[in-house]
């Protein structure tokens, strides 16, 4: 065993020939060449390409960045406001030219009939054709009973027009609340 150790020590002590300095450079060059060859092979692989739409999206992104959407929205809002203002001004001017409104319809006469005619009209129509500010201050006088006309159950309300003293009878569909009718007048 000791002999083996001794041989081992003596072998390690022997001076060795050193490689030529050019060897490092040669190995390095070989490695570089091998890398370059592999890189060349890698470059020959076909790549997945982006879609044609990507170019359009990039151009659109630039347009949006240079002309932000809020500017357009702001312009649109300003235009809308201007249009509304002009409309309101036109209506106001027309009303000023027409002068003060009068209640041309007069007090409602008859029972649920159109003023000036005997044709029965639905209550909603009768209210709808009279402007709220022109409506006489009707006072509820008495409330009639329900009666059925065809499929429609009607409630009648008798009222007194304080301006003329006339009695007015209004028919409303059952499903309309009485208070709502009075509030409307």
């Amino acid at each position, binding site marked *: 065993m000791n002999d083996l150790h001794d041989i081992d020590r003596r072998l390690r002590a022997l001076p060795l020939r050193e490689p030529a300095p050019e060897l490092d450079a040669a190995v390095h060059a070989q490695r570089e060449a091998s890398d370059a060859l592999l890189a060349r092979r890698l470059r020959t692989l076909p790549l997945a*390409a*982006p879609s044609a739409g990507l170019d359009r999206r990039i151009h659109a992104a*630039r347009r949006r960045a240079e002309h932000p959407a809020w500017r357009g929205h702001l312009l649109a809002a300003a235009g809308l406001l201007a249009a509304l203002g002009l409309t309101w001004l036109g209506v106001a001017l027309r009303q000023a030219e027409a002068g003060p409104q009068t209640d041309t319809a007069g007090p409602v006469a008859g029972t649920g009939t159109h003023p000036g005619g005997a044709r029965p009209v639905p209550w909603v129509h009768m209210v709808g054709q009279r402007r709220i500010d022109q409506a006489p201050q009707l006072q509820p006088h008495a409330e009639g009973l329900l009666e059925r006309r065809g499929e429609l159950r009607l409630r009648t309300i008798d009222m007194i027009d304080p301006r003329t003293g006339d009695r007015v009878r209004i028919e409303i569909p059952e499903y309309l609340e009485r208070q709502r009718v009075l509030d409307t007048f």
Partner: protein
Amino acid sequence: MASPPTLPDTSAPQIHAPDDPDAALEHNDRLEAIYAANRQGLYSLALTVCGDPERAEDAIQEAFARLFTGRGRNARDLTAYAFAAVRNAAYDQLRRRRHERNEPVSVFATTAVAPAGGLMDDTDDHALLKRAVDELPDAEREVVVLHIYAGLGFTRIADSLDAPVSTVHSRYRRALERLRAQMAEVMLT
């Protein structure tokens, strides 16, 4: 795809010169030129990060939309900055859809497969090499894509990845060694 490495913060607002429309247009012209010259490279980078063609395009659009608003105007190297921005956006896409477990798509185009059992021909060789690249660790694959397919130098890649040049160089070398070893292993078996 592994968790993203540390990224340069390209989403943070930069200190700009006072708004100058001409400078903004010039900046955007430069960006358009960078996009046109690096379209494929940018796409390959985004695709290798997020592994989905649609998300890759979304990432590029998102990144350039930010850049067009003036981000990176003071960057030392706008090309590297654009690559960094696209990479960040691609990682954002990946994070947003991390619950979706779709198989990542290769950065390479799909081509016809060679008949099985035949001798190794060009098509087999390509297929093996493609798979070997796809299976590289994320950090090494990014460097390979940026150097080989985007054509960026190591300094510019280092700027894009916010990493030392020596790190980029060693990642590239390790990637090539890995590819060589994998190819040799397949050829021998």
